[in-house]
């Protein structure tokens, strides 16, 4: 259970930014390895593409796009806070980053299915 002093918008935004960053860091080596197959083993790459056409992978990709989008927009908020002297409405900005990420990943999912 999350401790009481951490139950507020900006801490949850921090947590989401960290978790999405970690998961993306874990995903990237796998992503690059799969891409490398186009050069080293094109047949394996083709079969992986065919396998990735199932709905479970589509759902996983939706999560991935959400993580990427929430990390980008959450990161932009932090950069703006620290570099641009733009500091009002931080909670709204953090919530907006999540909303935009849901929108972007939702569009991705609708196009994928």
């Amino acid at each position, binding site marked *: 259970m999350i*401790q*009481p*002093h951490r139950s507020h918008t*900006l801490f949850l935004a921090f947590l989401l930014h960290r978790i999405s960053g970690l998961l993306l860091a874990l995903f990237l080596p796998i992503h690059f390895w799969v891409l490398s197959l186009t050069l080293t083993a094109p047949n394996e790459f083709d079969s992986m593409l065919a396998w990735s056409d199932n709905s479970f992978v589509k759902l996983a990709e939706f999560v991935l796009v959400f993580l990427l989008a929430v990390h980008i927009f959450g990161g932009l908020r932090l950069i703006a806070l*620290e570099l641009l002297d733009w*500091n009002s409405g*931080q909670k709204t900005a953090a919530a907006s980053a999540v909303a935009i990420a849901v929108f972007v990943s939702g569009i991705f999912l609708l196009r994928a299915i």
Partner: protein
Amino acid sequence: MQSETVKMNVSVWRGNRRDGGYLSYKVPMEDNQTILDVVTWIQHNEDPTLSYRFACRVGMCGSCAMMVNGIPRWTCRTHVKKVLKDNAIKVAPLRNLPVIKDLATDMDRFFDNWNKAGGVHHSDQTRNDEIELIDPNKPARKIVDAGIECINCAVCFAACDTVSGNDQYLGPAALNRAWTLVNDEKDADRPGILDLVSGNGGCHNCHSQGSCSEYCPNELDPMVAIAGLKRETMRHLISQGKTDA
């Protein structure tokens, strides 16, 4: 005929630096009652050995901060009705500071950090100089005004998880103080302060979790002050590089 007094269940942390635990007390409810009133009632009526710290009782001195139901609060201005949950309240000493006894913590680290962050006035004037007039509408002065109402209660220090994880971290209050001095035209060592707050344990350790600003009882915004220090230290570094070249 006297109506029966309603009582609430209050758990209070009792012990010292080495060990301790929560003890339960039944405290009568009043119409207007703060957490400090509750703690005082326990000391007066249940156990005179209960230790805690307070002074002004009106939210000016910053002495009485404690953890109330897991959240750091100024207890003299926190009404029971605001925080009572299932007729119970849990009171503990502030996080991130060593306990002396019961609810009183050793605040040395908190106050020492003010000095480490350059949080004293650096003057280059004497008593014979004319008093410099500062326009209250200047943007820099408005930044100072936004941060100077800190009462040193250490609520932000207790709320901050960077303080918990990093012994060297100066903490939100000390950095907020440094930010007010960096914007103070009368301070004669602003580059010196920027050097102090950009080192190990300085402003760049802040993860912008925002707990300091969320719980500051005076509604200051240390997170934004620290973001300002990050920006100014970077600008200072770049301008220094240009000067050196």
